[in-house]
């Protein structure tokens, strides 16, 4: 089964990955709601297989300033996962969490740390559902954060991914409250891991 790669994946396999994306995003929303201690609505996540160069455009242009929280995943499957938000959504999120308006244009260390933690919890919830569904052991690394142009941040998973394919799985999750909190997951399992995930689900 390890010969399933993202380039030759059939619709059926893709639907499975999509569904994992849906469940993961649902759990992430629950986690977010608990953390912010408010009701958080979510729209049906959009899961798409797309080329790297399209991702920047999806996020509002490659020069859009975004916050990316990036974790490396180890264990039964290896790869990386990134949670990206437009800077404005990230600011809304941190302001909700800290219960105050953010002063100034840039994030303070404390606010960056809070944002990292948000990313950690959201990606954690996502990985948890993936792990539970597949019975695979997944260890996420400590998250790292970077706020810069979307194109530059995306080059990081793109490079890791570039070694195997030109496409990736993008999950857009829109969390809504009174303000925009939408974010994007980018899941980058390595070559064998796609096969392992599908195999453990009985394919």
């Amino acid at each position, binding site marked *: 089964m390890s010969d399933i790669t993202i380039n030759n994946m059939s619709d059926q396999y893709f639907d499975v990955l999509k569904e994992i994306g849906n469940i993961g995003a649902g759990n992430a929303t629950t986690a977010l709601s608990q953390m912010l201690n408010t009701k958080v609505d979510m729209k049906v996540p959009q899961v798409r297989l797309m080329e790297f160069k399209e991702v920047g455009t999806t996020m509002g242009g490659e020069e859009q300033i975004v916050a990316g929280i990036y974790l490396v995943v180890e264990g039964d499957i290896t790869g990386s996962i990134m949670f990206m938000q437009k800077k404005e959504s990230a600011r809304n999120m941190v302001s909700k969490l800290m219960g105050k308006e953010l002063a100034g244009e840039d994030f303070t260390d404390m606010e960056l740390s809070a944002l990292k933690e948000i990313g950690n919890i959201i990606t954690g919830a996502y990985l948890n559902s993936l792990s539970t569904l597949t019975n695979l052991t997944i260890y996420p690394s400590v998250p790292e954060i970077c706020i810069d142009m979307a194109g530059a941040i995306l*080059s990081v998973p793109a490079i890791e991914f*570039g070694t195997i394919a030109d496409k990736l799985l993008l999950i857009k999750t829109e969390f809504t409250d009174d303000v925009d909190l939408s974010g994007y997951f980018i899941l980058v399992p390595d070559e064998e891991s796609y096969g392992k995930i599908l195999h453990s689900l009985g394919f």
Partner: protein
Amino acid sequence: MNICYPPDTITTIGLGSCVGIAIRDVTTKVGGLVHIMLPDSTMVKSNQNLAKFADTGIKELVLKLESLGCSRQHMVAKIAGGAQMFAFQNKTELTGIGAQNTEASKVALRGLGIPIIAEDVGANYGRTVIFNPENGAYEVRAVGKDIRTI
């Protein structure tokens, strides 16, 4: 990979750990820019896209310029990019990919006998570059920083 004639310019948005190599023939004023993502095409299985790698991409660009009547003796290069966007990146197997890309680009250019006359590489921020083959100006923009022309 793109070729351009004055007065046009070439822009590449959001170079992270990628490197943007601008090569220009100082006599014909024809310029080209290649945006490489990985240092070495021989390390990777899916390596059909030549422009993606430092070793093959730079060579392709030089061959393309030569086919348009440029001469290698008159070519000069400027490079930008090769940042390390996330602090932990050097712990993964892709050890400091930005630095590797920069190094591989330099090796490739040296191998082709093309001098590097300016560079803006490394650090931890993304860059947008605009190359003007008319005068060889290579403009580097980054978030929250002044525009720098090298």
